[in-house]
């Protein structure tokens, strides 16, 4: 480096590709690594689970109902116990992954994307547009989600798609309000003005300059919303307006196990644990991502990585 120091070998060395660097940073954070592995497992299960284990998961056995977990002398799939119809919980949880992830990911993604977009617009556009968007958000926010559910599901019928829709509508305002609040502040920062001077379009300013600053907060929210959506879906099932058997989701399993909480805890415990682990993993990963994507913080991961130079 011509300016501050004579160059040493390692500074000139080719920079590793972005993917390799992300990999290294992931390796540096063992928690995030475990989380990532778990999530990959979940996704694989979501894809192949139903075809693999559907028969096992739906085989009823009234005589073996509420079978307790940890009976290791039984077949492997009975190790987590069985539900009120004697169906093994292990395969059921795996089969339920697909629906669960679909509803949760769908709802979270829809609400996050729509909310963020509207938030960006509301923060940046004219006062009138912003006022309209924000009041709309107020309306959604004060519209009880249950009523939305009853209305949509009553009028359109209950299906995974509609459920996703309902859950996503009700979550839009958080993203919207969060994004807008941040935009209000960030847009007065000098680097945004600099981009303006360069002739960057509003779109570019919003997406290239403002969004990256808001994104970490939104990711944190979104990962937490995953849990919220899964549990809300369970509450809707309980009231008879959500997903209903014979479809299964973790939320539904929880709501079905609810009445056995005091004498057969495992019925709702395992699916609950699945939700907790998924949320936990998503969040550890999002916390990792927050650091990995922030140049000012990134050293935390790079320093821990394999020694370099």
């Amino acid at each position, binding site marked *: 480096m011509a300016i501050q120091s004579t160059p040493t070998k390692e500074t000139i060395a080719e920079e590793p590709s972005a993917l390799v660097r992300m990999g290294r940073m992931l390796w540096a954070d063992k928690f995030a690594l475990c989380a990532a592995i778990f999530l990959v497992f979940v996704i694989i299960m979501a894809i192949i689970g139903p075809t693999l284990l559907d028969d096992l998961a739906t085989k009823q056995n009234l005589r073996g109902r509420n079978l307790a977990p940890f009976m290791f002398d039984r077949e492997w799939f009975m190790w987590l116990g069985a539900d009120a119809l004697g169906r093994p919980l292990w395969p059921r949880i795996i089969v339920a992954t697909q629906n669960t992830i679909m509803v949760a990911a769908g709802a979270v993604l829809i609400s996050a994307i729509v909310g963020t977009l509207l938030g960006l617009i509301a923060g940046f556009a004219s006062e009138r547009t912003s006022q309209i968007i924000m009041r709309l958000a107020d309306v959604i926010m*004060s519209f*009880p989600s249950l009523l939305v559910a009853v*209305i949509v599901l009553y009028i359109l019928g209950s299906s995974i798609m509609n459920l996703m829709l309902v859950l996503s509508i009700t979550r839009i305002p958080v993203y919207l309000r969060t994004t807008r609040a*941040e935009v*209000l502040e960030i847009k007065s920062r000098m680097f945004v003005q600099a981009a303006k001077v360069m002739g960057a379009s509003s779109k570019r300013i919003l997406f290239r300059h403002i969004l990256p600053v808001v994104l970490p907060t939104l990711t944190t929210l979104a990962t*937490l919303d995953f849990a919220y959506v899964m549990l809300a879906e369970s509450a809707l099932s309980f009231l008879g307006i959500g997903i209903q058997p014979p479809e299964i989701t973790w939320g539904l399993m929880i709501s079905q196990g609810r009445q056995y909480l005091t004498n057969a805890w495992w019925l709702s415990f395992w699916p609950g644990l699945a939700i907790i682990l998924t949320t936990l993993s998503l969040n550890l990963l999002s916390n990792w991502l927050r650091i990995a994507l922030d140049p000012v913080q990134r050293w935390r991961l790079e320093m821990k990585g394999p020694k370099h130079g």
Partner: protein
Amino acid sequence: MLSFIRKRAFASLISLIGLLVMVFFLSRLTGDPASLFLPVEASAEMKAEFRALHGLDQPLLVQFGQYVGNVLTGDLGESLRKARPALDVVLEAFTWTLWLAVITMTLVTVCAIVVGSLAAFRTGGFFDRFSSMVSLIGASVPDFWLAIVAIVVFAIQLSWLPTSGTGSLAHWILPICVLFVRPFGIIVQVVRGSMITALSSAYVKTARAKGVKSGPIIFVHALRNAMLPVITVIGDQAASLLNGAVVIETIFGFPGVGKLMIDSILQRDFNVVLAAILVTAFAIFLMNLVIDLAYALLDPRIRY
């Protein structure tokens, strides 16, 4: 500022009206209250009579006109089921909910900010890992688990607290504790994330150069800069509490607006639903206004 509030109040009024109109028509598309009020064996004549009695046999627009007329005179109608003015029913329940929400959110806000800030202060440290785990588990645990387990442990096994209901101060403890968990988990995470950024800014260095202690650096210098997303999310969580914490109210027999709203929706008690939405929406609109004003208060660069 005042003109902002005035403009805002006007816009809010319009959206409130829009909300009511929407709920009015949409809710009436979801089934017939007569068949829910009367037993299945009731004859068609009885159902017709029920509808006539409550004006539900009129064309929707006529019903709407009447409703608007009544609302303008301050009358939000009677509950179809309770033979009481809907507004009374709702206000009664809402008072409980409001208290529950205010107390819970105050506790949550204080605790979450402290824990989240400290976690961010030593990112990756033991406290950070620990508090993250705890808060995340809190945010993803089904609330009825917590509620039932809390009742079994604290009310039955230990006999420290009443199982449920209202009456004494002790009755508030379990519901508040259970309600606390989820917003706490979420807000801790938001605070933590926002604080990590704030704590690495240059003005924090200035404060350190001035010799400011860690406490004020975290809670005075960085925190205020990190507050925008935090209060937004606090607002969101508060709104969901104001809309009623259904599960908690149901389990603890807490006479709040959430259970009322659910029951009224399921029973299609339209006037109560409308009144409940009106009241909660009013509270939420007000809260959002306060939050928007707080943005400007917290960050002088934001001006309306």
